[in-house]
């Protein structure tokens, strides 16, 4: 079990990670999902033992490995964890084999055992024919594999990945995703995987923690986040396409939706309504519950059409069964269903 208890990290007065608590069972694939700068790397570096928490604890299998309250931690090398850096951090003066071998050598393994383990790991990642090359003689995707091989070779119980696929091109990224999941199953290690890409999170994770401004907004299974987003932030951050959020404010006796009077009954005077993309419609004429907007994007996805429209600061995306009759740049009317899929307070907390 991997457990975080009230984990907090501040750099000077600036908090980067605030009061994070969660736990996942052994062998889980935990994804930390959040926008850039939200504290994901900091969290991961605390797990690796490279940063000491300001407060709170980290427990691996019931053992405290970092304790911010007592300013104490287990040495990075003795936590039974391995980290794959975003930049790969391959040692440029060592061959591929050397990179994978050196940590084992430091760990004090016999030469024979090392050779066997290196061969095994290189084969597992299908890079055995690159063994004698230097890092600058192989491609980015291959470097990525070497970085992973180097990390899994000493068989850590916890594998940490910092945005490992962000430097790869789109096709390679999809391949590596599958590869990483296979590897995770093969090693059985607990994985903590940091990304800003919600598709990666949704496809790979057993558990997802959505991080925003250093806090966990929601923690759960991927499907949970889609079905029951706990906040407006989560609602707009996960899902393909993400959900639409429209402000609803009281105006006299009725309510205005994005500035237009509409027949709707929100639970509060001021709130945010969430509409799933496939509950919206696009029409050329005004309807009973529609917003006039400019059509800015139309694209086809898996036989369906995704249309995005813009008005003021509001951006709505609809998923339709067939392409709209309008063209990009035209004025269209986005039809809303009578009941939104969820309600949030103006601060983003879920109401219903």
């Amino acid at each position, binding site marked *: 079990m991997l457990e975080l208890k009230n984990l907090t990290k501040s750099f*000077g007065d600036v908090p980067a990670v605030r009061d994070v608590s969660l736990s996942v069972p*052994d*062998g889980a694939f935990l994804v930390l999902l959040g926008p850039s700068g939200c504290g994901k790397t900091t969290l991961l570096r605390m797990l*690796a033992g*490279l940063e*000491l928490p300001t407060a709170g604890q980290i427990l*691996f*299998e019931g*053992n405290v*490995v970092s304790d911010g309250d*007592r*300013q*104490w*931690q*287990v*040495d*990075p*090398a*003795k*936590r*039974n964890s*391995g*980290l794959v*850096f975003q*930049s790969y*951090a391959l*040692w*440029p*003066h*060592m061959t591929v084999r050397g990179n994978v071998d*050196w*940590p084992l050598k*430091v*760990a004090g*393994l016999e030469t024979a*055992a090392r050779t*066997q*383990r290196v061969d*095994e790991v290189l084969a597992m990642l299908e890079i055995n024919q690159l063994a004698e090359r*230097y*890092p*600058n*003689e192989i491609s980015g995707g291959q470097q990525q594999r070497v970085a992973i091989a*180097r990390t899994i070779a*000493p*068989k850590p*119980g916890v594998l940490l990945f910092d945005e490992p696929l962000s430097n790869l091109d789109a096709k390679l990224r999809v391949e590596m995703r599958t590869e990483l999941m296979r590897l995770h199953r*093969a*090693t*059985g*290690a*607990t994985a903590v995987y940091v990304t800003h890409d919600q598709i990666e999170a949704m496809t790979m994770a057993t558990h997802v923690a959505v991080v925003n401004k250093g806090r966990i907004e929601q923690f759960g299974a991927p499907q949970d986040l889609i079905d029951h987003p706990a906040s407006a932030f989560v609602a707009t951050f996960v899902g393909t396409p993400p959900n639409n959020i429209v402000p609803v404010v009281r105006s006299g006796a009725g309510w205005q939706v994005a500035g237009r009077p509409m027949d709707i009954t929100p639970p509060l005077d001021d709130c945010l309504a969430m509409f799933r993309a496939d509950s919206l419609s696009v029409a050329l004429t005004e309807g009973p519950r529609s917003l006039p907007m400019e059509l800015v994007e139309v694209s086809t996805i898996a036989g369906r059409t995704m249309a995005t429209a813009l008005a003021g600061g509001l951006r709505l995306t609809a998923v339709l069964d067939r392409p709209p009759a309008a063209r990009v740049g035209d004025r269209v009317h986005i039809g809303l269903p009578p009941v939104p899929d969820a309600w949030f307070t103006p601060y983003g907390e879920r109401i219903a």
Partner: protein
Amino acid sequence: MATLASAPEPRTLQQGRRVLFQPGLVLKLVVLAILVLLIVAPMTGTVLFTLTPDAITAWSDVLVGRLAPNLFWWPLVNTMVIGVVCGVVCVLLGGFLAWAVVMTNIPFRRTIGVMATLPFMIPSFATALAWGGLFKNDRIGGDVGWLQGMGIDIPDWLAWGMVPTLVVLILHYFSLAFTIIAASLATVNSDLVEAAQIAGAKGRKILMGIILPVTTPALIAAGSLCFAGAVSNFAAPALLGLPVRMQTLSTRLFGMIEVGQTARGFVIGILLVLISALFLWLGNRAVSGRRSYATITGKGGRAKRFDLGPMRWPLFAVAALILLCATVVPVIILIASSLAPSSAFLFSNWTLHYWIGTSTANIAQGTPGIWHNPDIMWATTVTLGLGLCVAFTGMFVGLLASYTTARYRSGWLSASIMQISFLPLLIPGIAFGAAYIAFFGAPIGPLPALYGTFAILVIAGTGYLLPFSVQTGRAVIQQVSGELEESARLTGASFARRMWAITVPLAIRGLAAGGILIFVKIIRDLSLVVLLFTPTMPVMSVVAFRYASEGFTQFAHAITVLILIISIIATLLSNRLQTKSQPWLKA
């Protein structure tokens, strides 16, 4: 926890350790202690020494006493004249060459560009000695120079004093100005110039309206560095000015310490530091007050250069003449006069006596050639040892300081480490040497007095060249990014092992190049070591200086040539080392 079938036992969690201090505190304190010992303590020690009851009258003696004009004010005037003239002329000369090389179609641009960086590598005492070989007249007796020997009457003002000092210093420092200005000109995007041309501006307008404003910060920086270099220079005024009693602050400082008036010497040294630092600070302020334009535009290909037209060859002749005078001519004179029995007849009766001859009573009072001269051989050994030691300690401290500040960037400790390590840039070498005498000359606690030992030379050299070693160290550290080191840390390797297996192999090229740079700088330095010199611990440059002062010019010149040869070999070695193939750097 499930692991692969062939997995060894999962590693057990071992006892962690309490992080008592903020990380890096110990390291920072160690580095700071080293820097304090090398730089801060000698400087404050000097100031405090002049404030002791016995010494405090030195301040009034130097500043207002009856002797004050001779002790301080006239040397100050000379020093300022040297600094200002040298600063201005170097900027003009270096600027002209930089403009010609970077922006025009002058013939042999590349050759000129390379040649213009060389004079700074020739120590100023070499150029000053060469000047004597050429222009010395019979004013102070001894051998006359070649021109006088050819029957040309050399007037005193050309043989001694201010004019030759200025010429020698300018020939030395313009190369520094060239490097700075050329680098700045190279960033002037050719689009910038072409846009002005399209707008209808012609050569002069473009120069005054575009190029000059953009390069002003570089001009100011070059001027203030040349000024600071010239005011703190010791060799040129000592060799060319002292014989006719022209004093500058640095020769005064030297003279005071030589005759045992240490307190007065230290006061003059402190004033010299203040003057040099003031101008560097002013220059820095003038530069930082301006917006730096250079970085606004990317570097574009320079499609077109100014066409000099019929002026191409005349301008080339001017540039070539300046460069020959600053590089080839001094070297030829030094070599020739180390071979000629009389510098009046530089190119006749050449003999290798001064190099490999044994003692002969009728030549140079029986002084044997440098190969058979135990004093000179000992000085050579000491100098090489000093170069190696300082290169080693310098790179070690430089690396440690830059590693510490790179890894633990925040906090006032890191900031002070950075500030202190660049402090020696403001301190003239001779004042630095004086400070070391003040601080290490007497026993400190249980430690014996270090004056006259090899250790004091190494410590002084390390402290004096720290700005260079820290700069090199920083460049090296940047090659070894934090994550490369962290990923090694994650394996559990100890600090020493990480250094040995990861950091050092990655950094070795930069380290070696930096070390050689320091080696070359220290073996050809005169001003720092001239005060620390003792007959038991001689260094080559001071031995050459002494021989020259005593009229044994051939020996002085031979030793100087030897220093030049060692410098050149070391530099070539460093180049070779840099290009030596390292498989991971290919592609």
